[in-house]
């Protein structure tokens, strides 16, 4: 798989093969990145926008990718930053906080055909939304996407120990939230 990635990366960085290799990259990773972005921005239409922006950024910056981290981690990092920036811009545009904008989106999830709707799932989304931004990210990547700590460490550029502590705090806070509601 790593050899395949190396070959793909070389093709992506070669102007002659870049476009074809990029189409292959999109095919390989669009579903995973879709779910990652979706767990952060919550809304399908917003996810579509952010996913497109993420791939455009990947296409524009692939030439400067030095291979210091795995290609997948690098792409995830771009997707995460794009998602967080999108939420901040949306909240700013509506002159409300990130948390408030997420509350509105969570209310709309009832009508979302791609959301596994139940009272419990909505309550869990509300509990996650009450967490600080970093803990939200860690919880979403670990709990919803079942990502291992090492991959999370590569993407978020935070130590595994700090991520474990962050996830532990997030779980405790969510338990308290669920007891109170």
């Amino acid at each position, binding site marked *: 798989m790593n050899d395949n990635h190396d070959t793909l990366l070389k093709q992506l960085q070669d102007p002659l093969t870049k476009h074809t290799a990029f189409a292959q990259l999109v095919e390989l990773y669009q579903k995973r990145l879709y779910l990652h972005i979706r767990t952060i921005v919550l809304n399908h239409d917003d996810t579509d926008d952010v996913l497109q922006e993420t*791939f455009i950024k990947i296409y524009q910056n692939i030439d400067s990718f030095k291979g210091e981290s795995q290609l997948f981690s690098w792409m995830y990092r771009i997707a995460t930053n794009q998602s967080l920036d999108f939420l901040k811009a949306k909240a700013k545009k509506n002159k409300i906080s990130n948390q408030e904008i997420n509350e509105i989106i969570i209310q709309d999830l009832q009508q979302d*055909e791609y*959301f596994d709707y139940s009272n419990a799932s909505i309550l869990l*989304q509300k509990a996650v939304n009450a967490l600080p931004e970093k803990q939200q990210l860690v919880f979403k990547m670990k*709990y*919803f996407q*079942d990502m291992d700590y090492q991959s999370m460490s590569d993407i978020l550029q935070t130590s595994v120990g700090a991520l474990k502590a962050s996830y532990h705090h997030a779980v405790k806070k969510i338990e308290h939230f669920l007891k109170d509601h």
Partner: protein
Amino acid sequence: MQKDPFNNNQPFKMPSQEYFDDFSKRLLNKIEQDQNVQKPTIVKLKTKRKYYYMGIAASILLVLALQIIQLSNSKNAFSNDELQDYIQYDTHLGLSTEFINSFDQEDILELEKNIRINNQELNDYVLTNLDLEYYLID
């Protein structure tokens, strides 16, 4: 990241394959369009930028040159008072006693011959410029 990230805790469902096929098409079209639009613009911006930097460099040189000229002019320019003081107190230029004593009668006659004095002009100068009262009192 080889592990399948999709598990039972994930509340969001994956959209259909049609959605992703459509997404890929839209994305690749957009990238192609952006590239077509950007190509000539990049060349234009670079050219503009080159002239922009050249303009700034020329302006800086012009300002420096003007300042240097102004500085050298101001250094050479003496006021009348400064010039007068310089001549009066500088023994090299002033009429020293030695210099005056070295003048004999012949030299004075030679000097008088060389200086053509217009009497009318001299009278006009004395009447308009000299404070006669000062000399009369003294």
